[in-house]
């Protein structure tokens, strides 16, 4: 029995009603409106998620978090479905494990997930995903210009993938859509969940659906303001700061040599908390903590990218900046 949030309210509102339900055979009580995912996490039950992020509204598209609810024909996304009274939830039934395995396998069969982090690697192993059984990789990837509802003939010998060249059209971040799992997070962060810039949207349909500016114009021709919030929420490395990308290309990116220093952004009076990721005494990436009550992990272009002045050489030394 674990309460997710304290039951004491200081805003004068009526106390929340609580909901009793069963998760994996254990009785749980949570405040009304708590999602199955939050209830599971409070219980210490791991539920894998890919498209979920604490500071964005759930879009429930990846289906990695599905659980089985007694009486429900289909499985249910834990990230968005509130726990209801008397619900009986299984997080590791045969059907759940099968769906998770296949979701992970289908993603890994079409997308490069090598930078999607240690959790994903562990889940692929734990659930037994085997992307190779869908055949060898097709020599060319998805056609981003494909019209909705049309695709070329399929022989089935090789498996279609999203393989495509990295898009580098600005100095601040790169887009490698061969790694994109279409989790919608970047669109949400660019849109009404954080930045309200709306520079990108999902375009196309089906397997050819992709993240795009209008008519796929280059970022400098779009509404992008380079806040980098899309990069910060990307779970697979499809969006990457140029500084990190260049170091990785030079085989010089080494997380074990990096330190993280918290500081306050020097630019305006809001005072956002910055985390400076430093390797070899140079800032290689700037983030903000997701649980920070001002930023919720989001920054503007200045805090995110305006750190070059730190690297000004001491007087007398040669200036090696661009």
């Amino acid at each position: 029995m674990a309460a997710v949030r304290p039951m004491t309210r200081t805003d004068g509102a009526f106390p929340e009603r609580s909901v009793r339900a069963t998760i994996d055979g254990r009785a749980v009580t949570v405040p009304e409106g708590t999602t199955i995912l939050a209830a599971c996490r409070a219980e210490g039950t791991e539920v894998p998620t890919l498209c979920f992020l604490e500071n964005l509204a759930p879009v429930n598209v990846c289906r990695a978090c599905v659980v089985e609810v007694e009486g429900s024909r289909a499985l249910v996304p834990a990230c968005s479905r509130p726990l209801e009274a008397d619900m009986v939830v299984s997080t590791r039934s045969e059907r759940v494990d099968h769906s998770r395995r296949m979701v992970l396998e289908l993603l890994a069969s079409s997308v490069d997930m090598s930078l999607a982090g240690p959790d994903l690697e562990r889940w692929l192993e734990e659930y037994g995903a085997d992307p190779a059984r869908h055949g060898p990789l097709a020599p060319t990837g998805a056609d981003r210009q494909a019209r909705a509802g049309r695709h070329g003939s399929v022989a089935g010998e090789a498996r279609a993938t999203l393989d495509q060249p990295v898009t580098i059209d600005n100095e601040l971040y790169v887009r490698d859509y061969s790694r994109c799992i279409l989790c919608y997070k970047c669109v949400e962060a660019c849109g009404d969940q954080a930045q309200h810039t709306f520079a990108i949207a999902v375009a196309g349909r089906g397997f050819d659906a992709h993240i795009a500016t209008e008519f796929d114009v280059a970022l400098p021709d779009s509404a992008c303001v380079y806040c980098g919030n899309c990069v910060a929420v990307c779970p697979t490395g499809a969006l990457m700061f140029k500084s990190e990308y260049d170091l990785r290309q030079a085989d010089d990116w080494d997380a074990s040599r990096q330190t993280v220093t918290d500081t306050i952004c020097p630019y305006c009076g809001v005072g956002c908390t910055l985390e400076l990721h430093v390797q070899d005494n140079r800032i290689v990436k700037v983030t903000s903590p997701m649980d920070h009550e001002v930023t919720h992990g989001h920054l503007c272009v200045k805090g995110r990218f305006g750190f070059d002045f730190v690297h000004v050489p001491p007087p007398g030394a040669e200036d090696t900046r661009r």
Partner: protein
Amino acid sequence: METSLSAGAADIGTAEERAAVDEILSPPPSPWVGGERSPRALHVARRDGTTLPPRSLLLPALRALESRVGVVSPGAVNYLAVRMDLPPAEIYGVAAFYALLDVGEAAPPVKVHVCDDVACQLSGAGGLIAALRERYADEGEASLDGVQWHRSPCLGQCDRGPAVLVQRAGAHAADIEVVAATREDVVRAIAAPGPSPTPPAVVPQVGDPSLVVLRHVGRVDPTDLDSYRTAGGYESLRRALQLGPEGVVDWVADAGLAGRGGAAFPTGWKWRAVANQADRTHYVVANADESEPGTFKDRVIMEEDPFAVVEALTVAGYAVGAEQGYIYIRAEYPLAAARLRHAIAAARQRGFLGDDVMGRGLRFDIDVRQGAGAYICGEETALFNSLEGRRGEPRNKPPFPTTHGLFGKPTAVNNIETLMNVLAILEFGPARFRAVGTPDAAGTRLFCLSGAVARPGLYEAPFGTRLGALIDMAGGLMPGRTLQGVLLGGAAGSFVGPTALDTPLAPADLKAIGATLGSGVVVVFDDTANLTGTVLRIARFFRDESCGQCVPCRVGTVRQEELVARLAAGRPHGTVADELRLFRDLAQVMRDASICGLGQTAANAVDSALRLGWLGG
């Protein structure tokens, strides 16, 4: 939000493009929202109290651009962005979702969509495609005379294929349906000055006194309200007004009416749930996005009995307390849309719609909204998103439409055939309605017969009619032919073999053999049919029509098509047993974990074909 125009396109469209948009949104009231820029007007730094056009007009505006100039261009998207205060990227994302909208700098003025789906495959689509390739160009290439052809999913003319939809843009813009099409028919339709007349629908039972849903067909002039009234039209609405809203819901529930769109949800329950919602803006929506391959029943009703559709939706609005109804109809049905628009205008003029329906002080009106080529928009929540001007991606349920539907309000969505049954219930009473059919399925069903039968067409028969008897009604197979199988319920349904001929067409009996009625599709395959080609076509269909939102369906339909292609070619990865195991894994994740019914049923037909041993055997 601040609308940033795309720097990729410095203009806000041509005069022609702006006129197309203005036709839908009405002309811009000030220079700040796209109007003429004069120094005097720009001196006023405000929006003149202008209210922005509702986002739900986005799809109509995109359709107007397609029809007027043949393409949704960057300049036109910029103009829409200014007029509607929407981001260009989002408008592009919506436009690029639909198969019948071209996005880009330019597109040929004439697009020819040739149906090569399950039924048209059986009636010569292959030959027509070869002829068009010879006359014009390769698929997707523009010919020198500006014609581009594509293969198309089902166009809903399955009883008279091969079917073609000609989309002609420009001064003589028209969407033209060509049925039983030859190469010459297509050439003629492209060159014709106006929309050429579509031959009337095929309803072999016309005049049969046992007809319920189709009782008006052939007896009523679909363009004349008086003719409809003479045949008893608007008596059901009169009866409804006597019963009161609760009385109507009670009758519909007592009659045991279940939805005819495929899911068979009890209509009375749905209506009661909406009627009881305290949130007082309610909507009713007629789902006329009939796109299930093999289905054409709703098209026939809308073309032949449009006033009844209008009357039935009015009854629905009265019963659930809605003042606005929408008919969302697929773009591939231009004649049906025109007939409905005409019927609505006539009904409004005569006081059957508007602020004072039948002089009873009731307010109710109907808008017809056309889709733009997307099977998924027949899913009710995808339909809402499409109607609201968003990408037609289904929403997660719950919440259900009865509480959070169109524009977030309580909404009753009903299939056209379902609505027609409501009129019958009001005319005959629930007891007489229930007396037809089986104990668990009241009334009659429309069956779309196509393929290898002597008289394809739309048939009405009571629930419980045996499959063999239905095929006999359609004249049986051609002489000397034997039955290979039947596709029941469309691409989302399943194949059954000759042993199913004795099965009564009722939910429980069909469930016992692993089939469903779905939308009433009965495609008959005789021994000449290439079943492998049909199964491949279904696999391709689902890949094309997946919205792409959730992983099981987006990638699963691709892997399914690859697998079917390997089995069809006799080149499995590993053994056939390995492939069958892989297929079962794919089918289960799509069924269990997809967001909506499309993904959940995408493996049904392939599954049944494998069980019948039609692939890889």
